[in-house]
Each structure stands twice: as structure tokens, then as C-alpha cells.
């Protein structure tokens, strides 16, 4: 019974924790411009992250070490350093976007300007990372994030032509009004948003934080293979709600406020309040995860004691990194840069960094030295290799598409 509860908690947390500011903004934006003609990208992205999250979770459970920890061993200190710098840059950018997202959520509730919230939010995030237990962070914000189910309910309430929606989703053709490069650019952005690089490293480090062993592999798999796809359904729901309300009205999404309007249309104030709770949970939770991920990557590259499973006194350098990252992120946001614009760039740069982050996972998961008898099976390797090709294509296409489409204009 207790085991069942743990499994259920894990799945629910995975669903609620799946969506971050990148998913919120990108799915709403894409839905408003392209309808569901890019939904297939979310499906492809979710399958990809499931494959690699399962691998990196298995690495943590079997070897007791996080995936990034092992990158330097297998790829050497120089390639490992390049990997570290690239993933850190993208993760920091995402961290900035998430903190901005929290501030925007507060602005929507209080009408107090986002800039005034930045220092408070940054301080709150740091405080949570300093004092709150890892499992509490995961479970609290994961479960709160389930409020985003309101988007799926909203789609239902809007009473769409389901046949038409299904047809749109299964016949991915670019809308006549948009050019092919723009369509592909947003495909790359959506792909980057679904397969966020920090996610798999965080998942693996989280496994070490929670002391996973071989016995936890089944629970881990259920979290990934049930939780993540359902989280992906929420992403598509955000896109669908956006499509149903914004496409006929000719509205393009450029603010967080617009993301929630379809829920207000479908469900009124109650739905909107739930959406706001969901925005807060998704962004704050992801802010904690990205902040921790920066600390994890640096600590794991250099061999420092890292993690929240020890007292801060025992992991001083790790906590210093968290502190510096938070101050840095707040500093960037206080330059009045638009967090939504930062989000839009962060997802594309995520796509750019994907090969560097995913290739080492495939290498480590196949290494019998760490994995014993739990090395990748044929399915994992087949899917893993296929996705490696895909992420390289997306990564190579990202910058040219950004230049050609002027960042999606």
C-alpha cells in the first residue's frame, strides 16, 4: 500500500512538474499561430525525454552516481568542460526565464510590476534551495503544478470539433499564412522546450539525492513512462486551448497574461485562478530545478560534495554556486529584459545544446563498468541513437533558422 502511494505520488509529481515557463509560452505561442499542426513535435519530444530520462535515472539507481558526474570520466576533462560550459549557459538562461516567470505570475495577481518582484522571488528561490528538503521541493511544486490540468478541462469546455482537432494534429502541414522556415523554427523551439537539457541531468541527480537503488528502477520507470507523457498531454492542451481561442481572433501570444485567457474564456474566474496557481507552481518549481542543476553540473564536474542530502556546511562550494547563480539571474532580470523574450531564446538555445547533453547519457548508460547488468537494451539503444540523430539535426538547424526567420517573426 505504501509502495502504491509512493508510485502514485511519483507519477503525479512528474505530471505536475513537467511543464515549465518554456512549455507554457512556446505551446501557447505555437497554438495561436499554427494550431495543432506542430503537436507532433511535442509527441516526438516527450518520447525522447522519456527515453533519456529512463536511461539517466537507471544510471543513478544502479551506480549511485549522477549522469553528469560520469561525463568527465568517459569523455575526458576537456570535452567534459565544453559540455559543462554549454549546459551551464543554457541552464542559467532557463533559470533566468523561470524566475522571470514567477515574477510575472505575481504581477498578474497583484498588478505590482514584475521588476519589483524579482529580488523577492530570487531571495525566495535561494531560501528554498538553502533550507527546504529536496523531496518537499519536488512533491510540493509537483503536486501544485497539477493545477495546470485546468487547460485540459478548458479545451473540453470549449467544445471543439474533435474531428477537426484530430485532423489538424495528425496532418502536420504548415498553415498557408506561414513560411516553411518559420514552421521549422518553431518546431525546433518546441522540441527544445520539450527536451530541456537540464531535465535529464536533474532527474539523475535527484535520484542520487533520494538515494535510489536498483529496487527503485521500476518506480522510476513508472514515473517516467506514465508521468512524463501525461505531462506532455498538458503541453498539448495549452497549445489546443490557445489555438481554439486565439487562432480565429488573430491573436499572437507575447505575454504570460495571454497564455491564461483561454482558460478564462472556458471556465471564468475559478479556472483562471487555477491557471495562475499552475503558472506559479510550474515556474517556481522549475526555478528550483534549474538552480540546483547549475550547482549539480559544476559540483559533479569538479568532484565537489554536492546536493541537498547533506548539510549546507558539508557542501559549501555547491551552495556558493546556488547563491551566485541566483544573484546573477536576478541581476540579468533587473536590466528590464522581457522574461518572455528570454524564454523564447532559451528554448531555441536548449535545442542547440541538446547533442552535447544527450550523447554522454547514451555512452554512460551503455557502460557495464557503471551499469553492471543494467546496461541499455536493444530498444533503448535503438531509440537513443535515433534521437541522437534527431537532436543533432535540430541543433544544426537552430541558428540558421533563427537568422532566416529573424527569431520567428
Amino acid at each position, binding site marked *: 500500500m505504501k509502495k502504491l502511494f509512493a508510485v502514485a505520488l511519483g507519477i503525479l509529481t512528474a505530471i505536475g512538474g513537467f511543464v515549465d515557463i518554456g512549455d507554457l509560452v512556446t505551446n501557447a505561442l505555437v497554438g495561436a499561430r499554427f494550431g495543432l499542426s506542430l503537436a507532433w513535435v511535442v509527441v516526438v519530444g516527450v518520447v525522447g525525454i522519456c527515453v533519456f530520462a529512463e536511461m539517466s535515472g537507471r544510471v543513478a539507481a544502479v551506480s549511485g552516481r549522477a549522469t553528469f558526474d560520469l561525463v568527465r570520466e568517459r569523455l575526458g576533462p576537456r570535452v567534459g568542460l565544453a559540455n559543462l560550459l554549454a549546459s551551464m549557459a543554457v541552464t542559467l538562461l532557463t533559470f533566468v526565464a523561470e524566475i522571470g516567470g514567477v515574477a510575472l505570475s505575481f504581477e498578474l495577481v497583484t498588478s505590482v510590476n514584475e521588476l519589483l518582484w524579482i529580488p523577492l522571488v530570487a531571495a525566495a528561490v535561494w531560501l528554498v534551495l538553502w533550507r527546504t528538503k529536496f523531496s518537499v521541493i519536488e512533491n510540493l511544486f509537483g503536486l501544485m503544478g497539477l493545477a495546470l490540468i485546468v487547460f485540459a478541462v478548458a479545451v473540453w469546455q470549449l467544445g471543439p470539433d474533435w474531428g477537426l482537432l484530430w485532423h489538424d494534429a495528425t496532418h502536420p502541414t504548415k498553415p498557408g499564412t506561414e513560411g516553411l522556415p518559420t514552421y521549422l523554427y518553431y518546431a525546433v523551439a518546441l522540441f527544445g522546450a520539450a527536451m530541456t537539457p537540464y531535465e535529464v541531468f536533474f532527474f539523475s541527480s535527484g535520484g542520487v539525492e533520494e538515494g535510489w537503488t536498483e529496487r527503485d528502477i521500476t518506480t522510476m520507470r513508472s514515473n517516467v513512462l506514465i508521468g512524463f507523457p501525461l505531462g506532455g498531454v498538458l503541453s498539448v492542451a495549452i497549445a489546443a486551448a490557445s489555438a481554439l481561442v486565439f487562432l480565429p481572433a488573430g491573436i499572437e501570444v507575447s505575454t504570460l497574461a495571454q497564455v491564461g485567457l483561454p482558460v478564462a474564456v472556458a471556465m471564468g474566474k475559478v479556472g*483562471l485562478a487555477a491557471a495562475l496557481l499552475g503558472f506559479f507552481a510550474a515556474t517556481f518549481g522549475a526555478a528550483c530545478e534549474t538552480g540546483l542543476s547549475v550547482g549539480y553540473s559544476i559540483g559533479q564536474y569538479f568532484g565537489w560534495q554536492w546536493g541537498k542530502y547533506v548539510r549546507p556546511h558539508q557542501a559549501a562550494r555547491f551552495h556558493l554556486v546556488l547563491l551566485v547563480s541566483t544573484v546573477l539571474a536576478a541581476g540579468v532580470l533587473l536590466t528590464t529584459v522581457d522574461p518572455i523574450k528570454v524564454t523564447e531564446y532559451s528554448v531555441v538555445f536548449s535545442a542547440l545544446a541538446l547533442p552535447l547533453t544527450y550523447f554522454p547519457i547514451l555512452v554512460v548508460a551503455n557502460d557495464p563498468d557503471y551499469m553492471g547488468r543494467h546496461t541499455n537494451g536493444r530498444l533503448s539503444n535503438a531509440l537513443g541513437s535515433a534521437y541522437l540523430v534527431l537532436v543533432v539535426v535540430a541543433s544544426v538547424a537552430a541558428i540558421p533558422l533563427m537568422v532566416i526567420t529573424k527569431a520567428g517573426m
Partner: protein
Amino acid sequence: MSVPGGGRLALLTTAAALALSGCVTPATGSDSYHDKAVTSVRAAQSEVATAALTVRLMRHGRILQPYADETVTASETATGAIAATFASVQPPAGDDRLRDDVGSLLSDAQDAVGHARIAVRRADPGALRRVAAELASVTKDLTRADRSLG
């Protein structure tokens, strides 16, 4: 780290700069001025439609007041920026009429969204009803302009 790495970084920075600069390149020929006009009209349409939706939700009590305030204020700021950017572009010879027409349309849009913001903040049902009609009229004009230009 090594020269190729630095070179790649420089390339990336240049590409990013190009991508960003593309958004504010001044129009040169008549074609690109027309494109700029169409883009501005469509962007204004999006903001006016957002404001109209917000007003409608407000009238039916389906939106929280601070949320509506934030949404419509953001639309107002954006519409102002669209109008100002379009006005600042140097029109090619022969396109002065286009500039005036589109300019006045964008100015109407700005007024309407501004009235929407005032009505939302006052939560005044009468004002909301009037501004809904004003926004609908501006939407019609913008749609007509979009069709004739595009």
C-alpha cells in the same frame, strides 16, 4: 578555449545580432515598406483583439480584475510601440499616403485600447460596453486594411 572555439562563439554572436537587428531594420524599397505596414497592422490587430477579448471577459465577469488590468495595459503599451515604430520609419517617395492612412489607423487602435484600459481599471459596465463597440469598429478597419494591403 582554442581559436576554433572562439571563432564559433564569434559566429554565434554575429548570427544572434543579425537575427535581432532584423526586427528594426529601416524599410528601404516600397515593397518592404508595404510589408512593414502589413506587419504593423497585423500586430495591432492582435493587440486590439486581445483587448476586446479581455473587455468581453470583464463584461461577463469571467476574469479577475488585476489580470484584466495587466492584460489590457500590456496591449496598450504594445499598441503604442507598434504605432511609434511605424511612424518612425522613413517612407519611400510615393508612399506618404500609405503612411498617413496606416498611421491614423494605428492611432485609432491606440486610442481604443487606451479607453479599454481606463474602462477595465474603473470596472465601469457602461464604459466597458462603449469600448467594446469602439474596439469592434477598429477591428473591422484593421481587417479591411490588412486585406487591401496584404
